[in-house]
């Protein structure tokens, strides 16, 4: 690879190493980013992708190694240095200020004393032509759909004449339709001679959009497929090559690996369920919530989840999922409507009352809401049963009973922890999620609402979590599954409802192919429809 290092138009990373306490996030990674090419960076969560781009963006400094720009060693020791080099990053989550107009958002980084709006508008014109998307400069960023917001983010990243555009998991929040638009924009940018780094953990996208692929695993560069090589492969061959690098010998079969890596199209995996024949377990009628800062509240939500059913809720992140989950769990009170659980009206019951009935909640905020990082694993496992027998007797804690319960759950859910007394915050994300599942699904659980259960987990844990949920449903439990991952919803749900801006805009029976597209249409119709 050193032969291309001196070539102009190339940004080369050489032996980049970055260690954090307890983990080497990047271990001697070398790669070349060439202009006019889309370089896909593939890898599981925790493979070191994010660290690598934050080094490129000047937000982190490597412990060792060099970055060469056009063959010249160039330290990128601040985000400003990265911008001056023309390196722009589009982060996974929106960094736009919702109350500002598109133009104001784009001009946030301007350093001049006076705002030069004319020049800014001209620049935006150039960029929208390049992206092939019309962007209204005076629209409020918060009013735009997510696909459009992302186009603005790209424009923002390229504002100062970019030479390298880094897209961090850009498709994770988009509908299938918006992904197509994004692909078109990326192709345009590429045609202008810019380099694009495209980060994803989905194989399909890597093959469709990428010119070359680099695979990271455990902080190491474990495989690179060059431009010619990738072009000569069929999709199946490329997949096999990538999967081999991505998992090594970790995953038993290729089919399993392919599915985990999102190589194949998702298909439903849960057993058929005659919903009509089953009793309704949870019924929401006209439920609305009110107030709580910036969260989107739910309005007029009516839905029912039956015994043994997994009901998926699809939607773009931040469209009322949190409010829905919380109102079901009892953490947020319902301003209107009723919630019935197994026929009983539980609208006025609090979290603890519903917990005892068997209504459980696995939150998406595992670290700050679901667990108390400074407390032991054992205490976190009984956190929802504080004060209850046999763990507390006459107000006094019975540590033996707590530890025994903890040991039981640790064994049952294979939670990897040095001991039950270890502080929960020191465990990995996957094991913290297992703590949550163990805690919620034990002791008479009949219904569980799960919000983004596999977000940010490594693929093996993802598989395990999905298995736990399907087993729970197969045993007669009911699941309300809120997720932004369409593939996950299609694999696990019997039915999928779509939430948009706090309202349920439609429900799709998950039978056979094409569910994802139908759901995507509902999402698009509800969100982009107004602005398209």
């Amino acid at each position, binding site marked *: 690879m050193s032969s291309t290092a001196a070539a102009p138009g190339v940004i080369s990373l050489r032996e980049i190493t970055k260690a954090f*306490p307890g983990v080497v996030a990047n271990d001697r990674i070398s790669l070349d980013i060439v202009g006019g090419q889309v370089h896909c960076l593939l890898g599981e969560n925790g493979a070191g992708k994010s660290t690598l781009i934050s080094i490129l963006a000047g937000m982190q400094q490597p412990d060792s190694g060099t970055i060469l720009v056009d063959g010249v060693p160039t330290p990128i020791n601040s985000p400003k240095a990265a911008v001056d080099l023309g390196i722009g990053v589009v982060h996974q989550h929106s960094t736009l200020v919702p109350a500002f107009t598109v133009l104001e958002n784009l001009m946030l980084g301007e350093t001049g004393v006076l705002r030069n709006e004319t020049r800014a508008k001209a620049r935006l014109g150039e960029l929208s032509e390049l992206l092939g998307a019309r962007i209204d400069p005076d629209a409020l960023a918060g009013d735009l759909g997510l696909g459009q917001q992302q186009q603005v983010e790209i424009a923002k990243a390229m504002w100062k004449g970019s030479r390298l555009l880094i897209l961090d998991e850009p498709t994770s929040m988009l509908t299938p339709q918006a992904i197509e638009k994004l692909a078109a924009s990326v192709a345009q940018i590429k045609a202008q001679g810019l380099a694009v780094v495209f980060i994803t953990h989905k194989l399909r996208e890597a093959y469709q959009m990428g010119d070359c692929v680099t695979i990271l695993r455990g902080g190491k560069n474990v495989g690179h497929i060059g431009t010619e090589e990738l072009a000569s492969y069929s999709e199946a061959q490329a997949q096999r090559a990538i999967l081999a690098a991505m998992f090594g010998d970790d995953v038993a079969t290729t089919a399993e690996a392919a599915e985990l890596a999102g190589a194949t199209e998702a298909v439903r995996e849960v057993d058929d369920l005659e919903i009509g024949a089953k009793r309704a377990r949870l019924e929401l009628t006209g439920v609305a919530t009110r107030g709580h800062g910036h969260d989107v509240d739910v309005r007029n939500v009516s839905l029912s989840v039956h015994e043994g059913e997994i009901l998926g809720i699809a939607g773009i992140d931040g469209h009322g999922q949190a409010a829905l989950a919380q109102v079901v769990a009892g953490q947020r009170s319902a301003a209107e409507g009723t919630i019935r659980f197994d026929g009983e009206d539980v609208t006025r019951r609090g979290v603890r009352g519903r917990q005892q009935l068997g209504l459980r909640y696995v939150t998406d905020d595992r670290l*700050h809401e679901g667990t108390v990082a400074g407390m032991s694993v054992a205490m976190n496992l009984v956190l929802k049963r504080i004060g209850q027998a046999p763990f*507390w007797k006459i107000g006094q804690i019975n540590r033996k009973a707590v530890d025994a319960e903890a040991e039981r759950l640790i064994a049952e859910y294979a939670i990897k922890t040095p001991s039950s007394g270890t502080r929960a915050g020191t465990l990995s994300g996957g094991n913290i999620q297992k703590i949550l599942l163990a805690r919620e699904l034990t002791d008479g659980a009949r219904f569980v609402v799960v919000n983004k259960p596999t977000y940010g987990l490594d693929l093996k844990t993802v598989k395990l979590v999905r298995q736990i949920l399907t087993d729970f449903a197969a045993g007669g439990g009911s699941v309300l599954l809120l997720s932004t991952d369409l593939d996950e919803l299609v694999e696990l749900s019997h039915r999928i409802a779509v939430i948009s801006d706090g309202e349920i805009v439609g429900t799709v029976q998950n039978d056979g192919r094409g569910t994802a597209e139908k759901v995507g249409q509902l999402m698009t119709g509800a969100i982009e429809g107004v602005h398209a």
Partner: protein
Amino acid sequence: MIEELPRWRRITDTVVRSVLPVVLALVVAGLIIAAMGSNPLDFFAGVWKYGVTGNNWQDSLRLMAPLMIIALGLIVAFRGQLWNLGYNGTFLLGSVVAAGAGPVLFPILPGWLVTAVIIVGALLIGAIWSIVPAVLKARFGTNEIITSLVMSFIAIGVVNLLIKGPLHDPNPRVTAPQTATIDRADLLPFFGGTRVHVGFLVAIALALVAQFVISRTSFGVRLDVFGASPKAAQHVGISRSWMIVLLFSLSGALIALAGTIDVLGNVTYMRANWNPGYGDAILPFVFLARLSPLGAIPLVAFYSVFANGGINAARSVGLSSDFLLVVVGLILVFMTITEYVGDKRRLGQSYLPAGMKQSVMSLFGPRTTATTRVPSSPEKATTPPEKVSTTKTTATRAPGKVTT
């Protein structure tokens, strides 16, 4: 991910972090005394002499009673991450209940009943006064630091008005703005012939009860969950509003109790503008004790001796007694530094702001060209990545060396 430390390391770490700031503050205080032309050893010997020897230990313990109870009041609120800074006002409110009601009620009712009435009254007033910032926070999300502080100023004003007005000593020969004095026979019982009153025992007993509640009961766990993360507390089904109101009123009640006990056992009457500022002095020690009631006992005892002996000791070496506050301030400064350095050390980070070392090092040019360090194992990676910057300078200087 943060590595779990072995148990003994955690314990020594805690002790070091609690004691080191005090030691450093005393050392620096000694240097300041020396710089002012006095002998620091004389001062420290004076602290011991006037704080412990002879009958002086009795005064130290008498001072410890209100300090300890205030510390408990602060611990209750701070454990829930509620920053109740209204302690001065609440303390005076508790005091004025005793100083106002005592002289009036003791002559006409049995002593035990009056004491009980005064204590209950103080607890109630302290709790009610503290509920205002609590409700404001629970309902509207206002910052309790501001509201509790403002409520404290109001309380101080109200107390002074009461002492100058309705509670003024009815004896016409007393012109100074102060209340009547409580008769010595009506004060709290003293321990056989000493000046230590039963309030000291109450303070220690309360500390033990608080320690038990915090470490053994379900309320203690709820309190810690709430303190660690209000979001987690809500998730577990703990009402945030209720918790805020409860903790604030508990905290206020305890601090008011400290005021009552100090008047009933020690000062016997109140002058206008009397404000011992106990809470300000004890605040750093509450943090040094890691908000543990048991841990607070030795630290409060230390400060009681230091404050009691320090006044005379300072005078004897020709310093103002305000010098004690300098020491308290120094403890706060060194506590902050110890925490910062300790946390950085635990996380294995450099002590300097990112990029600073790099910029400083670049001034010294080629001397910094160290060998490129590549951590080969996770264990090694836990050492502070201080050499980061030097490798970067290497890279820019000798590009030939680095390529592949």
